[in-house]
């Protein structure tokens, strides 16, 4: 039996081994899990026996697909199997490789798994089909991509049941919109309730106040506010608390799979704007973990701005792409560097660039900020 080595790369699963594999480059291979001994799995790869420590959670009997991204030494990739849109014949071929019944739902699931780059595992697809049946086909299919992001991982799937499935009827982005709409209704009243001012202290970044403090957006503060106000006599306040509770409930599931949805509310000139982005934990090839996220800021104040961030533990790298502007980039970049140093005391690298007409960033300069002790 040949040994395979397993590694993660940028959050993607790979299987690696030093042998010539009887398959063509970039072809999709079938992996069948025969058994598990400690961290090692006994597997069949296109019918040939190997052992490997797979980077996904599977049980004996499960089947998954992988892409051969290198043949000598062999390297198999478990996710991002296909970048382009696949036709239904190709999807049927892949489902057939997995021994999954071909239905409208299974075709839709595998299409989305491939689109968002998730591993394609038979048990995950079957779990998702089961979930859709529990949830009601029509309701589930309208939010299928959201459900797949959250429940294609077996850790989360094992925790979902008929009692809590109702919390996933609204995708988290839409939940943030509902929280925002309800908040706006309440904060705009002529006499804003104390409860809403308390909530504003947790979630609002107020640009109208010079030197105003950052919102904490701390989950336990938000949870305490929610618990206090779920039973409010005012229907709109209890409804807002219920939306925030659903948000925190969903966030708990996202955190279990290494993702952290974040939201806060911007205030400027008495106008409000919701901000929502998703941060993720990923692994390097060497197993070390890093955090990453991006956000497209759309504001009348700024125009479109793209922000990317990576926290590698020792330092944070920030890339900001702006539309062409009148100001000198170097001046703005220096100001941003100075601002971050003063406010965070972190080891941060900043890269400010101009978006080209094609939407790609042109690097103008690169500045490093040293840690302040």
């Amino acid at each position: 039996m040949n040994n395979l080595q397993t590694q993660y790369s940028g959050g993607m699963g790979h299987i690696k081994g030093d042998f010539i594999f009887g398959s063509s480059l970039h072809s999709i291979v079938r992996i069948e899990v025969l058994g598990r001994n400690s961290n090692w799995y006994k597997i069949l790869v296109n019918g040939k026996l190997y052992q490997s420590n797979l980077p996904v959670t599977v049980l004996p009997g499960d089947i998954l697909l992988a892409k051969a991204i290198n043949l000598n030494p062999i390297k198999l990739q478990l996710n991002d199997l296909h970048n382009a849109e696949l036709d239904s014949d190709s999807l049927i071929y892949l489902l057939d490789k997995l021994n999954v019944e071909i239905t409208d739902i299974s075709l839709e699931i595998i299409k989305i798994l491939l689109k968002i780059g998730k591993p394609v595992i038979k048990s995950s697809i079957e779990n998702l089909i089961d979930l859709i049946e529990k949830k009601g086909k029509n309701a589930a299919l309208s939010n299928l991509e959201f459900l797949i992001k959250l429940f294609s991982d077996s850790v989360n799937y094992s925790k979902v049941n008929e009692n809590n499935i109702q919390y996933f009827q609204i995708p988290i982005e839409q939940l943030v919109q509902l929280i925002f709409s309800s908040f706006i209704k309440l904060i705009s009243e002529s006499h804003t309730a104390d409860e809403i001012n308390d909530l504003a202290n947790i979630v609002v970044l107020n640009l109208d106040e010079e030197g105003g403090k950052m919102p904490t957006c701390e989950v336990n503060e938000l949870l305490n506010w929610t618990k206090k106000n779920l039973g409010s006599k005012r229907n709109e306040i209890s409804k807002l608390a219920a939306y925030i509770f659903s948000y925190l409930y969903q966030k708990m599931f996202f955190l279990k799979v290494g993702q952290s949805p974040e939201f806060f509310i911007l205030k400027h000139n008495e106008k409000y704007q919701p901000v929502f982005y998703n941060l993720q934990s990923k692994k390097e090839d060497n197993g070390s973990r890093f955090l990453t996220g991006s956000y497209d800021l759309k504001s009348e104040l700024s125009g479109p701005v793209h922000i990317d961030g990576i926290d590698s533990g020792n330092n944070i790298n920030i890339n900001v792409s702006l539309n062409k502007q009148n100001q000198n980039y170097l001046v703005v970049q220096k100001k941003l560097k100075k601002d971050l140093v003063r406010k965070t005391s972190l080891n941060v690298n900043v890269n400010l660039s101009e978006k080209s007409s094609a939407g790609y960033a042109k690097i103008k300069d690169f500045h490093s900020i040293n840690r302040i002790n």
Partner: protein
Amino acid sequence: MTTENKYEVIMPEDETITEVTDFYKDYVDMFFKLNFVFMQVIEFILKNKLNNEE
């Protein structure tokens, strides 16, 4: 339950509130630093534009 924008408002049971409270009680937010920097960058960008307007 009421209906708002086609979505149901879910009033959680005590058991669910306890589940969420227990989860977040011991939660260490490893995303805190990156999130804080994101907020600072967004604030800076918008304030910088503000300064231009003035």
